[in-house]
């Protein structure tokens, strides 16, 4: 997933609504609608500081967009909660007929939330329109890179013709951006505006989309599948830009579950003092990573030795403890520990502790005069969290204490930042990453392939690396891929096109008595609302 996938780091909290809100809801609801507790129970209320902006999967390449799609729409395949392999969702079965042809048979009787039928034409339409629209903030490139064409020979059959053998194709189909939308209802050339309303086939349907006040989901009576939503109604409550607001909301019981984003100060407080306020913090495997990108098209980092010296000087453990209160863990390769194929190459090459002597030597050997003047960019905290500035100040201190670097820190707000770094405007800069699909490849190809998403911001291009990546992607069996993964990560540590810093845990805060949240904490890093039961929340 692109780094724009929302804030990388901190987790969140979930909360449960307190008795007051519960009672209030019941009685007030009655006065207006006459509904009673038996028929319509308490809505589940989910709070987040994330900014929801799009309802169209073709434009949803961030965490809030994916979170919405995963709950209101379906994909051909999905990775079930806690799993790590793709399984059929609207498909009955899928298989490679040959390495470049992937055929899926769809289930019958599928319907969209407007009651219309979902068949293979809609699947083809959804893929074609997304790649055709090429929305600048959309996820289309996940599929466009390997897809030649889609064919729908009959209503239950979809055939994907690939440009080359791609073992990751089934995984790619699980990304929420590949959600199916109805042909005819959605435009083939335009992104659907929020005001037009969303149509999907997921367990929930979108009934209100007001990203500043509330987003309301209700059970989709046309949904056909195994997911059994516990709550008929879910309210997503945005706390834009206010992590403190989100934290007090869960403490006051105004929301049941809070996730993304609570910074490490708030998480630590909730862990230590939340119990008395009825709040619990759940943590699990995370898939978010944070890394530094070096611009190899111009500036000081064109010189490999400068990148290596940088790598020698970073103390990841200190960053994790001092800046993040241990809510993140040091990362010595781009692939997080939750994935098969991780190989801690940076630890092997550069050691766990900073080594100024080696850094100095590598610079001297390359004839680089010190101190090297560099500019280091980080986001202003509106995207990667308020700790960004602190982390980069720490990095600045670590680099400068060696006397080898003279660092100028720069920052910009995310909207500008994300538009600027691909133009090559920054010498070195912070990015984060969540996976599009849970596979180690998604932590390698996106960063190391020639002409990757960072464009002129990075400009890394290496023939051997491209070959290794292609080989790994076309290999189907995991044990055959592992040695290739290892080679790739070793080479990345040698070339340092990016520098991994840490991986993050997924953190959710919830009210006591809420059940099911733990089932959605996994490598997918998503909130599957249908699993959550807040009926017993305190």
């Amino acid at each position, binding site marked *: 997933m692109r780094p724009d996938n929302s804030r990388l780091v901190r987790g969140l909290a979930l909360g449960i609504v307190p008795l007051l809100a519960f009672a209030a809801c019941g009685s007030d609801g009655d006065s207006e609608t006459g509904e009673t507790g038996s028929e319509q129970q308490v809505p589940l209320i989910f709070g987040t500081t994330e900014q929801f902006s799009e309802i169209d999967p073709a434009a949803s390449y961030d965490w809030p967009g994916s979170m919405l799609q995963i709950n209101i729409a379906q994909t051909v395949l999905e990775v079930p909660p806690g799993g790590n392999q793709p399984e059929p969702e609207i498909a009955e079965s899928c298989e490679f007929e040959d390495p470049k042809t992937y055929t899926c048979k769809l289930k019958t009787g599928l319907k969209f939330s407007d009651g219309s039928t979902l068949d293979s034409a809609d699947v083809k339409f959804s893929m074609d329109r997304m790649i055709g629209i090429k929305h600048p903030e959309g996820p289309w490139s996940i599929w466009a890179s390997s897809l030649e064409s889609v064919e729908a020979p009959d209503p239950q059959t979809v055939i994907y013709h690939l440009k080359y053998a791609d073992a990751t194709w089934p995984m790619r189909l699980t990304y929420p951006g590949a959600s199916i939308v109805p042909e005819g209802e959605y435009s083939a050339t335009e992104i659907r505006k929020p005001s037009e309303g969303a149509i999907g086939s997921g367990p929930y349907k979108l009934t209100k989309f007001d990203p500043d006040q509330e987003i309301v989901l209700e059970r989709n009576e046309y949904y056909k599948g195994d997911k059994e939503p516990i709550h008929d109604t879910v309210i997503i409550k945005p706390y834009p830009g206010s*992590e*403190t607001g989100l*934290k*007090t909301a869960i*403490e006051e019981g105004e929301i049941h579950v809070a996730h993304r984003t609570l*910074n490490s*100060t*708030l998480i*630590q*407080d909730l862990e230590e*003092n939340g119990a008395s306020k009825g709040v619990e913090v759940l943590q699990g495997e995370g898939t978010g990573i944070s890394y530094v990108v070096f611009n190899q098209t111009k500036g000081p980092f064109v010189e490999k030795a400068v990148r290596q010296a940088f790598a020698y000087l970073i103390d990841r453990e200190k960053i994790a403890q*001092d800046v993040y*209160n241990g809510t993140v863990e040091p990362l010595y390769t781009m692939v997080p520990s939750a994935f098969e194929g991780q190989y801690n190459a940076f630890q092997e090459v550069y050691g766990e502790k900073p080594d100024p002597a080696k850094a100095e030597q590598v610079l001297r050997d390359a004839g680089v005069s010190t101190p090297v003047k560099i500019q280091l960019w980080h986001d*202003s*905290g509106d995207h990667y969290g*308020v700790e960004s*500035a*602190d982390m980069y*100040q720490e990095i*600045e*201190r670590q680099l400068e204490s060696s006397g080898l670097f003279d660092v100028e*820190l*720069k*920052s*910009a707000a995310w909207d500008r930042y994300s538009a600027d770094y691909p133009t090559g405007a920054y010498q070195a800069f912070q990015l984060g990453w969540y996976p599009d699909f849970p596979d180690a490849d998604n932590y390698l190809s996106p960063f190391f392939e020639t002409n990757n998403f960072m464009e002129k911001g990075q400009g890394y291009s290496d023939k051997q690396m491209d070959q290794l990546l292609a080989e790994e992607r076309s290999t189907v069996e995991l044990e055959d891929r592992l040695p290739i993964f290892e080679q790739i990560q070793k080479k990345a540590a040698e070339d340092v096109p990016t520098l991994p810093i840490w991986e993050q845990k997924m953190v959710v805060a919830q009210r006591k008595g809420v059940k099911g949240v733990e089932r959605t904490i996994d490598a997918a890093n998503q909130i599957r609302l249908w699993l959550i039961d807040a009926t017993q929340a305190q």
Partner: protein
Amino acid sequence: MVFTPTVPTDKDLHATAARRSWLRKTVDVIAYPYRASSGVARGMLVAGTVMVGFMVVLAIFAPLLAPAGFNEVETAELGAFPKHAPPSSEHWFGTNVQRFDVLSRVIWGARTELQVVLLSLSLTVVTGVLLGLVAGYVGGWLDRLLVLVMDALFAFPYLLLAIVVAFLLADKIPQGLGGGIAVAAVAITVVYIPQYFRVVRNSTISAKQATYVEAARAIGAPPFVVVMRYLFSNVIQSVPVIATLNGADAILTLAGLGFLGYGLQPTEASEWGYDLQRAVDDATAGIWWTGLFPGLAIVWLVVGLTLVGEGLNETLNPTLRVRRLIPVQLTSVGTTAQEPAVAGRSSGRGGEDA
């Protein structure tokens, strides 16, 4: 505008001071309000001066007084600082989320605030006074145009104006020219220029009609001489009061900018508003010391400046002192057709009641 001291109140002072040294004259001018004031006004003046003076001392001697640098997280004596440590004998005001020593941040912050405010006040006074003199003296379409622009600037919510300017200038001023400090100062400058412009322009217009100025013009004194010699010294008297009150206001605007994340980059200097922003998260976690001290520092400095300004106002402003029966004026001298929209605005938050 209320400050229209067309009658010099300190004529005697000038007469005797002329024979004394320049230094002595300056001291006299500065000491004058303290001697001339009485009662509550003197109390405010003295108390305010002491409060501001304290901050000035902190600012000047920050390197000696502060236990650590504003962005240091370890020193030789104290070792590496812990994060979020409560006040102790080692860190009197505790440490914050960035592991900075809060006491040091407060002390260095005094330097930042005073730097920005002095810079912005100088910019404001120079620009505002010049424009006001020119507009008032030249008159005609230039005057009308300037009044129009200044009124529009004045009518706008000041914080909004400062935010937009800070946003537009962000990163545009290189480190060598002051960097973020200059950005913040310019943002604040834009907010306050109209006030000086208005006071000076109106004073100029009424002074221009005074007999001695008309006489000077009649005997053929060139405009520059007339402006400098006869108007400038006269008009400039209203400036100290507004400047002090605006200084207080500017501190608040700067802190507001910092709180919202505009103006200074956090790595450039210690700024109280920014520290307060970072303290919001701490507050709900029961960590009170990271927000309390920078907040109190702001209150302290603003109260100090306000007291000085108020004291000066009551002492120097002849309208209030001599002719107390005149209510707040609604119109300024020589208003133009556009002016009613915003007429009667006095110096922002500081001086409505003069």
